[in-house]
């Protein structure tokens, strides 16, 4: 087809389109990352300067004692919440998924469909009573309101894992049962090892969820030593809206890890996104 002149022209249009669209989509991101290391004098120059000697002054500024953005502290807080979330979500969601996929019990389907139905309830409806409950427990300004709920499973991840667990061959489970293994052993030693790809996707997306979460930390964390990156960055933006260099350095510090993870776990990313769509 490409040997015809019309085919060549169509090809050219295609590549021009895809390259210019890529530029439009990447431009803001490139601007963010480059501004994080761009000397102050060049920051507001147009057309944007792309070739320059990178500076670390904005990043260093984030470590200043007087800086309201305590990078290390916020990063440590965020990582703690992320680690707890990944661990809690993977463990609890896979347990519940096993109950829905591989154990026959009265009421199972009822609860399963009830769970799918609850995914439609907007979080704002539960937000206020849950807040009051944590307040009663004295958990305001601690990480518990952000971490403890992850121990109770996440409806979406339970659904995803259930679909995956259903693909584990029945014979494998029956053989393990004949060998006298209990259900816990079968879940932990047979189903879980076979489900590492799905568990990796759940781990990745629960990590992203915790890393990006804004409303939760905004409601529950009051003292700035407990802020996560997202709340810390939002407050920083509110107070120092004109310090573009430092703001971009802080934004880049929140964005860069996600991009690095993306390049290492591209397959899980794409799989996860596709899985979200499978229900449709």
């Amino acid at each position, binding site marked *: 087809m490409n040997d015809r002149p019309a085919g060549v022209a169509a090809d050219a249009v295609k590549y021009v389109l895809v390259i210019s669209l890529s530029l439009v989509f990447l431009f803001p991101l490139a*601007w963010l990352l480059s501004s994080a290391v761009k000397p102050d004098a060049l920051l507001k120059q147009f057309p944007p300067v792309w070739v320059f000697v990178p500076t670390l002054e904005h990043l260093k500024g984030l470590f200043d004692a007087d800086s309201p953005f305590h990078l290390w502290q916020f990063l440590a807080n965020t990582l703690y919440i992320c680690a707890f979330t990944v661990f809690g979500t993977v463990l*609890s969601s896979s*347990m519940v998924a096993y109950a829905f996929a591989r154990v026959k019990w009265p009421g199972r389907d009822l609860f399963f469909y009830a769970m799918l139905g609850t995914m439609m309830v907007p979080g704002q409806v539960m937000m206020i009573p849950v807040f009051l409950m944590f307040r009663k427990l004295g958990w305001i300004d601690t990480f518990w309101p952000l971490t403890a709920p992850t*121990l109770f499973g996440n409806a979406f991840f339970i659904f995803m894992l259930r679909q995956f667990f259903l693909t584990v061959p029945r014979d494998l489970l029956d053989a393990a049962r004949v060998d006298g293994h209990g259900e816990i052993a079968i879940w932990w030693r047979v189903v879980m090892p076979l489900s590492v790809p799905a568990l990796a996707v759940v781990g990745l997306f629960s990590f992203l969820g915790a890393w990006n979460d804004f409303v939760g930390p905004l409601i529950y964390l009051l003292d700035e030593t407990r802020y996560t990156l997202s709340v810390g960055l939002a407050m920083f933006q509110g107070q120092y809206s004109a310090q*573009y260099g430092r703001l971009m350095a802080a934004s880049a510090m929140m964005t860069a890890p996600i991009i690095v993870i993306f390049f290492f776990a591209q397959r899980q990313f794409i799989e996860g996104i596709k899985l979200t769509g499978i*229900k449709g």
Partner: protein
Amino acid sequence: MTQGQRTSLCVGVFFASPYLIGFLIFLLGPLLCSLYFSFTEYDIFNRPEWIGLDNFRELFEDPLFLASMWNTVVYTIFSVPLGMAAAFAMALLLNRNMKARPLFRTFFFLPSIVPMVAASVLWVWVFNSQYGYLNWALQPVYDLVNAVCGTQYQPPNWLQSPFWSKPALILMSVWGVGGTMVMYLAALQDVPAALYEAADLDGASAWRKVWHITLPMISPILFFTFVMGLIGAFQVFTQAYVMTKGGPGISTLFYCLYLFNNAFEYFRLGYASAMAWVLFAIIGALTVFVFKGSKRFVHYEGGAGE
């Protein structure tokens, strides 16, 4: 109940217990509580006081509530179809036979994984009318138009303008459609090539192929992203909180931002609960409405119906 059934019930409930307990603590309990609060006046410090339907009555006379509803509807009506159209166009483009497709897919996808707060901080600068690059890029276009038509137009003030603040946030939302595009692309690649070959034999044009083959074949995923997009857009919060705080004026005071303000700034927990239930009702109604409508437009391969 036999011995075996009893055992399996115990095993099932044991494995499901995290969710069953969580269901009570984080879902059913709070759901009932907030329903109760929505009929009360409650400021966190004093006991909730029953006021019947007063909160709901007040809502529909509250100019800020009505404004927040309007802002949210405008945002949703524009951002969801625009995002879907952009994602579909990009997926169609990438679905053509092309070199380095995974690379371009990555380029389109990357912006969608930028954390929302970080993206908001970035776009505040992009939209800045003095130092942002958007208006720098638009200036030549405006200059050209002004030179040709003899007019005096200037690029918009985006986040400083009550008129342009919503379009700005809508524009920004289109930047993050990479995830949707990945879903569409995956669906496009599942459309059997034989269908297109048959259409080619019949001499169908490219547009007819898109209209009569591609769109029906990927309609389930289009429908799914439409419903999820509506629900998501109606809950828009972070961008507005970080970038505009609802301003200028009340032009970006979105539903969930006003709800948040009522709950955690003004401590009107009863009123905020009433808002939450109205939101729940709206989202429920939208979902049912869209599902009903989908029966006419969504084609499920294999004729399973649902």
